[in-house]
């Protein structure tokens, strides 16, 4: 009997020992070469044409698909992708693209391509969002927000394929932002053959759930809330990806993502918690990459309401705000002061620091000149949600409240639930609002026409309700020409006009962060087109910390 009791004890102790042994060494698949990327949410769709969120774009576009052309941020020029070269007629209305030959589509258990990429695929992909008669136009909801917002669906008059490897796009009017729009990660190329096959099988919706593209990875499976799995596309035209597989692990909490990175549950993690970035940078087992995202947080004044209809008052308000303090306290220094509405990464950026400098004395003088020696009271509407350009508009508004009190302005903070906030904003009920803008593509036009023109006022994106004929003429002239120096001149004039008129006060361009483990090789800082995981691999041969990894964007892909 005693023996029996001993046996039980031994089993228990033995079991405990065994479990502690299991725990001690990490078990990994042998010869595996896969990258684990902790993503911040589920993808809305596997077709970037239909989405707006950067999360989905990161997980789909650059991994599964290719675009006709790409934008190189370092050289600030367009470079060939599926199109090898392009020509524009002198009137800027007809673009002819020569296509790359022998580009293979993904071979998967659900689709076997019988032909390589041709002009048919380009026509199919473009017609899907251009043509309401297209069999796929209304599949999966039929919304193409990017092409609608950039008005590309209005701009393109006709698209045709004179030869199997040439595509001709005719525009209604010349538009120098056209190439930027085409190079954005939303303008991907799908497989026309796959589309045909699904139509015959009466399952068209699968085109956005089980995607087929020409990109470096092919779809394997997706489990909601758990992971998205991709495999390497071995016949990728740029050469196979450095890793055999790519897994996006879905982890909405930023804190959890950081812990998973530290424990090796993921290799790369975007958007670490702002308060922990300094600490992460000190650790020697992780690398922190950063890039200036092309976004701007700004304070827009309702220029239809007195006293904000006076430029003098708006200038006074601009000089009353200590923006440097905002960068420190709201962004934890993970942003730079915006000296123009246009981010300083753009070639058309003109810094005008004097126009927006912190100068309370000047602000008081301007207020007196405008007829408000004793100040006035106003509302600041603070965006109720977190955005990449503003981690906490509420906190920002509180800091600004103190700055404004110093020059005699009594500010009152207003906030509504996000949907009613947007609705009331669209009705122009605000005095001023803290909001911002993230670029969809590389062209500077993206920060002017959709935001501050009279047309934008009609489409309610113009939060300042500002309509200035001179400004409209400048930015319209700028997209009608393709001459860079001429465009620079026009945008300089436009930015100077904004500095005088101050319909909005630019506040900050935030920095986007990404953390990777030391043994992750080939990773580049994220760009606004998304993250490119084609050259990334894990160096498992060196268990200890590796001294150097690529942190500068060299722009190229092996």
């Amino acid at each position, binding site marked *: 009997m*005693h023996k029996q009791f001993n046996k039980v004890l031994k089993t228990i102790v033995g079991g405990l020992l065994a479990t502690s042994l299991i725990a001690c060494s990490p*078990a990994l*698949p042998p010869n595996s070469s896969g990258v684990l990327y902790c993503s911040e949410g589920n993808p809305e769709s596997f077709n970037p044409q239909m989405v707006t969120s950067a999360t989905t774009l990161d997980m789909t576009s650059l991994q599964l698909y290719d675009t006709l052309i790409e934008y190189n941020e370092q050289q600030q020029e367009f470079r060939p992708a599926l199109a090898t070269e392009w020509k524009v007629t002198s009137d800027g209305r007809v673009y002819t693209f020569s296509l790359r030959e022998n580009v293979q589509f993904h071979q998967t258990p659900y689709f076997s391509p019988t032909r390589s990429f041709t002009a048919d695929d380009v026509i199919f992909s473009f017609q899907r969002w251009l043509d309401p008669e297209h069999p796929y136009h209304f599949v999966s909801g039929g919304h193409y927000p990017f092409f609608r917002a950039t008005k590309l669906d209005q701009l393109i008059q006709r698209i045709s394929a004179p030869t199997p490897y040439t595509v001709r796009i005719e525009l209604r009017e010349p538009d120098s932002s056209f190439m930027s729009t085409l190079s954005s990660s939303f303008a991907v190329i799908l497989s026309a053959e796959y589309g045909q096959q699904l139509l015959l099988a009466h399952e068209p919706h699968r085109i956005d759930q089980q995607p087929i593209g020409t990109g470096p990875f092919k779809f394997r499976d997706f489990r909601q809330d758990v992971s998205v799995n991709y495999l390497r596309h071995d016949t990728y035209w740029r050469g196979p990806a450095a890793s055999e597989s790519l897994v996006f692990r879905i982890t909405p909490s930023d804190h959890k993502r950081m812990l998973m990175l530290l*424990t090796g549950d993921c290799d790369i993690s975007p958007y670490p918690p702002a308060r922990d970035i300094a600490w992460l940078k000190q650790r020697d087992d992780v690398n922190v990459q950063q890039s200036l995202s092309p976004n701007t947080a700004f304070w827009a004044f309702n220029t239809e309401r007195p006293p904000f209809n006076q430029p003098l008052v708006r200038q006074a308000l601009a000089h009353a705000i200590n923006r440097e303090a905002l960068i420190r306290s709201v962004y934890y220094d993970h942003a730079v002061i915006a000296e123009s509405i246009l981010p300083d990464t753009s070639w058309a950026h003109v810094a005008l620091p004097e126009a927006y400098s912190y100068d309370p004395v000047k602000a008081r003088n301007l207020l007196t000149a405008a007829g408000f020696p004793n100040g006035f009271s106003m509302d600041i509407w603070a965006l109720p949600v977190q955005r990449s350009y503003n981690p906490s508009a509420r906190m920002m508004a509180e800091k600004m409240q103190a700055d404004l009190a110093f020059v005699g302005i009594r500010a009152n903070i207003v906030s509504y639930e996000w949907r009613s906030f947007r609705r009331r904003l669209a009705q122009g009920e605000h005095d001023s609002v803290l909001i911002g803008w993230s670029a969809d593509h590389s062209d500077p036009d993206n920060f002017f026409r959709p935001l501050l023109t009279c047309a934008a006022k009609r489409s309610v994106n113009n939060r300042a309700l500002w309509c200035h004929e001179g400004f409209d003429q400048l930015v319209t002239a700028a997209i009608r020409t393709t001459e860079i120096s001429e465009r620079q001149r026009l945008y300089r004039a436009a930015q100077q006009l904004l500095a005088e008129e101050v319909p909005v006060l630019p506040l900050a361009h935030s920095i986007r962060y990404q953390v990777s483990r030391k043994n992750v090789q080939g990773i580049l800082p994220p760009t606004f087109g998304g993250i490119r995981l084609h050259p990334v691999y894990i160096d498992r041969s060196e268990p200890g910390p590796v001294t150097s990894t690529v942190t500068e964007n060299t722009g190229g892909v092996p």
Partner: protein
Amino acid sequence: MIRIILRQFTVLALTLFVLTVLAFSLAFWFPGNAITNASGVLVTDIHYQAVATARAFDKNIISQYLAYMAHFFAFDWGVSLQDGASVWQEFKLRFPATLELSLLAMALALLLGPPLGILAAMHHNKPIDQIITFFSLSGYSIPVFWMAQLSILIFAVALGWVPIAGQVNPLFDIPLVSGSILVDIWLAEQPYRGIALLNALQHMILPVIVLATVPLVLLIRLTRNACVDVLRLNFVKGAYARGLSTPEVLFKHVIPNTMQEVTLHISTAFSLLITNTLIIEMIFSWPGLGRWLVRSIYERDYPVIQGVLLLLASLILLVNVATTIFHAWRFPRVRRELNAT
């Protein structure tokens, strides 16, 4: 015995009936359209009329309830309001994951709890007892979410022994068949099954131990108290007087009598465990019912809430009844008492 079983099943059937009525009425109590709440089909959907007819919404409330039950047993639990996915299909893959975690934790608690409780009682008020009581009391006082975070910080972040998220490293590429990772690895035709199993166990170890703590300390305390009471009884003294050795007294007399008290509380421990499983799944990103249910509550996904709540409640009920029946079958004295009333 048969009478007891019959009585238990009657009670079970009645409770289940009340439970289904409750789940059925939820569709009406939740704000919005009852048909949408029950089926997940929106008014704008082309199938809306067909669904309304199939669920007998043109007839009286009794037929509606019957239609609800028919749908329930046909596993047609409607579709999720968030993504339009079938609730049953999703449930089928998530429930085994939850079950796996809770059964392992329960097994661990049952394996360790009673022996430790008896050990403590045998050394009543001596150092061993005080140590065990100290740990069980601390385990009882620390909230499970706090313990989970603490264990992650110590064992995963500081010591780097175990991973903290998911069932297995996704690079193993285990095909999803049942949802339970151990079963899936067993079914997978892969050259690296052994290593995959090890990896899965590493993922499991922390959530299982943290999860086991609550029922474990409960069982330790119950067993200890019951055992101390039994040890004071005269027949134990009598057994010693008859010249039986300590192990003989222990295994023949003390343990059976102690377990009679403890067995009944196993179902309590289990229902505590299920509640905690939902929290643990959130913390360890375990793809079970927990995360799904919590997100559905945030998103007001009524078909999911309805289905999951009904199933979890039924599960706890079943375990309860099973425990009672086992209790009566194993311990004749209990059976006699039950029969007498």
